[in-house]
Structures are given as structure tokens and as C-alpha cells.
């Protein structure tokens, strides 16, 4: 209980206020483009070392949110604060620092890993980009990161194509961890993996979170999985967050009708057991 109160009062690591993103759509040559509002007025904050899950169906704006937070996409309006600094008007000298702190893991590891590089080269790439260490040093750190995610350092010189789906996602995770980030955005990172592998990966993620004091934003459409990993859940629909609360509360007492529908649609073994 004491620990709980402490967590509550801690400054949030990430705070998002009134975040909106509009895309112009229409034919290339069309005079009139119409606007699609992918995000409108999204607000939330994440405490350090906790996990916020964002759930919703396709088209809800989950991935746009992830891309805005990772600064791959420029939001149309709103504020993103990270450790008390506004990410949207950051002095250029701090931009690299932020890129080091916030890392993104994508859904499909196959398309996220360069098949021309070996596993260890892939993991070491962020170090190269940030100009860190000597070549030998970088290799050493990449192998350590691989080991943290449960990949044998002996596999360092294999091509990513030689890894199974679950192992590729471990490799993508190792690449995200190699710079020692504080905030990880996991965009459907476990979707498409087999159940037994998903469970392994959830354990790994929780492990790494505890040992490296990481904060997660976990994006998913899988509520059952989310219930096992998140401290808080935000339900998104049509670009807005319609409900946000502690995980236990969301599942025990969903307020919004849409949340209730989502929870009811989880396939369960219950009726047979």
C-alpha cells in the first residue's frame, strides 16, 4: 500500500496534453482535400517504471499515437512532455538525447530488420548512429543486449532470416535496448506470435522492466494480453481516449459501453472449464 501511494505522487515520465493529428486525404490532383482526424485531444500521463496499455481496434489511432510520441510524425497540435521537457520544441542539441531515451518496437520484426546485416550488426546499429564506442566495444554491447533478451551471443553472426518469429522480435527488442533507453513504445510488438511465445515475451518484458527501470507504452488490440502486462489501460476509439483507468478497474468495472463490448469479445476457455 505504501509503495502504491509513493507511485501515485511521483512525477510522470511522459505527459501528453491535447494531442491531435490530422491527415489531408484525397486524390493527388484533387483541389479539395478533406481532413481525417487520426488523433484528437489525446491526454494521458505515464509514471516512471509503469506500463500504460493503449487498446483499440484498427483505425483507432493507436499507431499514429506511437509515431507521434517517437517523433516519427509531427502532431498537428498538442503537447508532449518527457521528464519535464516539451518534446515538440526541443532545442536541437537535446534531440539526440531524446532519441536515445525513447525507443520503438514495431509489430512485424521481419520488415523491421535489415536482412543484409548480421544479428549483431543490427543490434549495434543505434550505437553506430549515435557514434558510440569503438567497433569492438559496440559489438560487445550488442552481444550483451542480445543476451538480455534471451538470444545466445553465439548467434550474433547469423542473418535475421535464420531466426524464428519470436527470436526476431527478441532481436528487435535488443536493438531497442542497446542505447539504454528509459521509455519503450511497443506497437503491437507481440501480435502475430504464437501463444506460447507471447507468454515468454511478456515474462521477458516484465523482467527487463524490473531490472532496467523501464517505462512502457504498450499498444495492442489484445485485451487478454494487456490484462497481464499493464498497470493502466487507455481505450481508444476514433482518435480519442474514451476510458482510462487502472487495469483491474477496467476489467472489473468497465464504464464505457464500447469497453464492455471489447471485454465481452475476448474469446475465453471459461465456458468449458
Amino acid at each position, binding site marked *: 500500500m505504501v509503495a502504491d501511494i509513493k507511485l501515485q505522487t511521483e512525477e510522470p515520465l511522459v505527459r501528453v496534453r491535447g494531442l491531435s493529428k490530422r491527415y489531408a486525404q484525397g486524390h493527388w490532383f484533387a483541389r479539395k482535400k478533406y481532413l481525417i482526424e487520426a488523433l484528437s485531444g489525446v491526454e494521458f500521463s505515464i509514471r516512471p517504471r509503469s506500463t500504460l496499455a493503449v487498446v483499440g*481496434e*484498427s483505425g483507432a489511432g493507436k499507431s499514429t499515437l506511437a509515431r507521434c510520441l517517437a517523433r516519427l510524425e509531427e502532431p498537428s497540435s498538442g503537447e508532449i512532455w518527457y521528464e519535464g521537457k516539451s518534446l515538440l520544441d526541443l532545442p536541437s542539441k537535446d534531440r539526440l538525447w531524446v532519441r536515445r531515451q525513447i525507443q520503438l518496437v514495431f509489430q512485424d520484426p521481419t520488415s523491421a530488420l535489415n536482412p543484409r546485416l548480421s544479428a549483431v550488426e543490427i543490434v549495434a546499429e543505434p550505437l553506430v548512429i549515435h557514434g558510440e564506442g569503438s567497433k569492438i566495444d559496440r559489438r560487445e554491447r550488442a552481444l550483451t543486449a542480445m543476451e538480455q533478451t534471451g538470444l545466445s551471443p553465439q548467434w550474433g553472426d547469423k542473418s535475421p532470416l535464420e531466426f*524464428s*518469429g*519470436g*527470436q526476431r522480435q527478441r532481436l528487435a527488442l535488443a536493438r531497442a535496448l542497446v542505447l539504454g533507453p528509459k521509455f519503450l513504445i511497443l506497437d503491437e510488438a507481440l501480435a502475430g506470435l*504464437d*501463444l*506460447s*511465445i*507471447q*507468454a*515468454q515475451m*511478456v*515474462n521477458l518484458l*516484465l523482467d527487463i522492466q524490473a531490472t532496467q527501470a523501464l517505462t512502457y507504452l504498450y499498444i495492442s*488490440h*489484445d*485485451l*487478454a*494480453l494487456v*490484462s*497481464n*502486462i499493464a498497470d493502466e489501460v487507455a481505450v481508444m476509439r476514433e482518435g480519442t481516449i474514451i476510458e482510462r483507468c487502472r*487495469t*483491474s478497474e*477496467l*476489467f*472489473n468495472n468497465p464504464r464505457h459501453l464500447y469497453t464492455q*463490448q*471489447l*471485454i*465481452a*469479445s*475476448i*474469446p*475465453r*476457455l*471459461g*465456458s*468449458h*472449464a
Partner: protein
Amino acid sequence: MLQVRGLTVRYRPEGRAEVAAVNQVDFSIASGEAVGLLGESGCGKTTLALSLLRLLPATACEVRGSIFFGKTELLGLGESELRRLRGAKISMIFQEPEISLNPVMRVGQQIAEVIRAHHPKGRQQCLDEVRALLDQLGFSDAHRIFNAYPHQLSGGQRQRAVIAQAIVCKPSLVIADEPTTALDPTVQSEILTLFNDLKARFQTAFLFISHSPAILAKVVDRILVMYAGRIVEEAETTQILRHPLHPYTVGLLRCVFELGDEGAFRPRRVLPSIPGNPPGPTDLIHGCPFEPRCPERMEDCTAREPREVKLEDSRGVRCFKYGG
């Protein structure tokens, strides 16, 4: 109705050694029965499904055993006989509805095409039948769907259109390969309800392929568990969920993310998982293929492969724990 005996499918990928994707598989499906095929990716589920329709890619160099559909041996049929069978008697629903539909043809026409391929009916009559079917499938605006192109539909609507295509000729067996995996959760549950509906209404037998026990639990009567190209356990859905026998099935069921009883949230803890990875097709297997990941391995396990043991109530399991 469908009887598969000793089915073995071997692939010879270009420039590489031959591998067996499906190994000595026996099973049967009664008419009107819904059977689930459960297993992780790469265990041979899709190969098995494709071999029933003789749709295997050219790299499949050897198909042995027998597949009896009624009194017809499917492995002995020629291409023209197969064409008469596919879509009319046995049809298939694939995972991605985007790929199964022709992007430049109206949905209604595509469905009607299936009827015209098999019955000498007039164009108008076919279209009328399709309209009637779309109405039955619970489309709220069947008329719009009929005239729409696939890209104008949502994922769930497209999957319904593909289902319509599969059942329009009232086949006696429909094979559905992960039909809901690409769909959103609420749409997924709608489609599963639709499958249950069809089962009751059309008396069609289903072979439903999935990696998720929770999905199968919603639609099938009996489950076949596949691992490394073999069927390692077979039982009625309720039995297998209540008392799984094979250590692989036990592990797989434990991995299902559950919300707990009555949807109550279960606090965070270390999740049970199956250690390691399933063997790849090129891995050499000595003894039981599950042995390297099995928590209950014994001495016998590496010596030879367990035989299938038949237990009471049509259950079967391949494990030394039960005398295999």
C-alpha cells in the same frame, strides 16, 4: 465423411534437403461436425489443409497415404475432377480476405461466379441466389455489399463475403484456415457467431484451423492438436479443455491469457509458457518431437517416437506417459 489415413507430405525446397511437413496423420470428420486443428505456426496445419484440396505448392514432392471424401479417394483424382469438387463439395476460407477476393470485380459477381462454375444456371438466377445468401449472412445492407468492390468493404465485411463464397454451393466440408486472425476483436467474435449459425443452419462440416484454443473453444466439437507435423492429441473440445493429456496441450492451454473467473482481473505474475521454440522442418527429430521442450520428459522419450494410444471416448494421445 472425410477419412485421412497415414497422410505424409514432404517438401523439397529448392537446393535444400527434403523435409516432412505432415507426418503420418490419421483423422476423420463426420458430416456436420466441426473439428478444430490446433497448433503453433510451422507445425503443418496449413499444409494439412491444403493437401485436402490438393492445392499444395509445386515444392511438395511427395504426398503419401489416403484421403477419402465419402467414397472418393482425393489423392487419385485428376485435375478436372478436382475442379468439380473444389468450391462445390469442399471449399476453403483463407486467413486474409484481401487476398482471396478479386479487387476489380464486384463482390456479388464474385460470389455468383462460384455457382456458375458448378451449376448450369442462368446469370440472373445466380445473382438472385447470392442476394438471398447475403441477406442470410447478416449484412445490414446486403444491396450495397452486392454492388461494392472489395476495397470498399471493411475487414469484417470482406471476410463475410469470402465466407459467402465458400458456402454458396452448400459444400459438405468447409476448411477455414485462421479465418479470424486478421480481424479486430469485436469483429472476430461476430464472425465466430456467424460460423456457429452456419453450422446449425447448413449442416456443413467444418475443419477450423487456429493457433488459439480460446477461439476453437467457441466453435468446434472436437480438437486435433498438431505438433511438428503430427497429431499428438485428439479429443472432444470439452474434454481437452478440462483434462488435456499431452504435455504440449497442457502447456498450450496454460499460455492462454485469461481474465480469470467472471472477467475478474488477475494480478500480474510470471506467466506460464512453453520454453524454447517448436522444431523447424529441417531439424532432425529423435524420438518424441516435443521432448526438448517437455517438462515431463522420461528416458524413453529420446529413444523412439511414441505411438498413438487410443483411450476411452474416442480420445487419442501420442505420449509415453499414457503408454505410447
